[in-house]
């Protein structure tokens, strides 16, 4: 055993209980990342669409949302959601125990999606603005409504322009999911903490965490890079 010869305690590789704990934490993290990646991109697209809308009220609400999430620390946002909003959203069951309606995991997913979504709105808006006005006019003069022009012409182009910035923000999102730790979502950092408390193997678990995160970010960057290459248009270089 490695532990006996060198003193390195990688319990997650030989202790069934720790392995299961860590694996569940890993799955929770990946699930949180996947949900937030998709939701934040959807929020970005919808928000960017609203920012171009004629309704001032909608634009102002979106603007307020972006400012709130961009200018406050994500950890504070998470606490705000969980402790401030979460304390109201409770059901009292028959035997008098208050049960939260929204789970910790869901709060983290909501908060992180909106946090990354705020940046995505700005990223997509910049992409949309980089599509020449003339391209929209060409679509309009072919009878496209604003919605259809966006769906078929503007967004596909804006998306390509936005991809590098989107890449950065999604990498950032992956890393930020660790703050779910603060509201006891049993994700990777949280279970690592449990493990090193039990086994007193902080350095080992730190290394495991770092390597796992580097790998996850690496996978995302690789997928996004492939996607970017797949979307590349012959003879065209976006703005």
């Amino acid at each position: 055993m490695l532990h006996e010869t060198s003193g390195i305690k990688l319990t997650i590789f030989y202790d069934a209980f720790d392995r299961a704990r860590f694996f569940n934490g890993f799955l929770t993290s990946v699930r949180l990342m996947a949900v937030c990646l998709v939701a934040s991109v959807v929020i970005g697209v919808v928000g960017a669409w609203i920012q171009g809308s004629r309704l001032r009220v909608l634009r102002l609400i979106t603007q307020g949302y972006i400012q709130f999430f961009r200018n406050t620390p994500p950890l504070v946002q998470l606490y705000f959601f969980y402790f401030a909003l979460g304390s109201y959203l409770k059901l009292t069951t028959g035997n008098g125990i208050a049960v939260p309606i929204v789970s910790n995991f869901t709060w983290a997913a909501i908060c992180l999606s909106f946090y990354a979504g705020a940046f995505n709105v700005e990223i997509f808006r910049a992409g949309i603005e980089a599509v020449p006005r003339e391209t929209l006019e060409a679509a309009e003069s072919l009878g496209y409504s604003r919605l259809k022009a966006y769906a078929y012409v503007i967004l596909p182009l804006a998306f390509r322009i936005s991809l590098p910035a989107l890449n950065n923000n999604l990498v950032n999102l992956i890393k930020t999911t660790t703050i779910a730790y603060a509201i006891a979502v049993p994700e990777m950092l949280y279970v690592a903490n449990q493990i090193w408390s039990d086994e007193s193997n902080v350095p080992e678990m730190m290394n495991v965490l770092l390597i796992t995160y580097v790998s996850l970010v690496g996978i995302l960057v690789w997928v996004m890079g492939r996607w970017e290459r797949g979307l590349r248009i012959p003879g065209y270089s976006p703005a």
Partner: protein
Amino acid sequence: MPWTPDQPLVRLADVHKTFGGGVEVLKGITMDVMKGEVICIIGPSGSGKSTLLRCVNALVPIDRGSILVEGQEVNDPKLDKLALRRKVGMVFQQYNLFPHKTALENVMMAPVHVLKRDKKEVERQALALIAKVRLTGKEESYPGELSGGQQQRIAIARSLAMNPDVMLFDEVTAALDPETVKGVLVTIRELAEDGMTCMIVTHEMGFAREVANRVYFTDGGVLVEHGPPKEFFASPRDPRTRQFLDQIL
């Protein structure tokens, strides 16, 4: 009163347009374009030629006056833009093709997305249109892989795929390399010979003389004079027209 083909297909009456800055760009334009007629609009840069065309397909809303396209009033808050734009095709100076779509897809997109026509049937028409603009073999090329002249011919085919009744051309050769201008002009002339109603803004005087039924000269937002090309070019009456023609001929 329903529109009949013996009435002007496009009828502008006292059209006024002022942009945000406060400068009046169109100061009361009145003109009739009959079905099958080809008119060329010439005039110095900034005289409002592009704005005039863009008002006809409601890319630019007008302040005052009336524009009727086949009897449909364009200056109407309840305007059915789709109905109007099915009738009016427009080709721009910068082609404005959709860069993420192939030439064939560019031609097919609007009929499929907007008119919801059958894809197979649209493809057949699109291939025929691409052949008509002499670009068979370039169907799978992306706009970025085509020359300016080729892109412009695809842009013309893209407009034609909507089966418009009138085509607007806004200085469609102004951005092209000299050697590719001819191909585009030939395409437009063939269209005109097929009986397409055309409103053409151009700086190509030789082309205007050849293809137009009527030439209009604009300056400072007004139509200064118009006439059949032979008379117009041989004996312009207004000094502003004469000065303009002297400069560029």
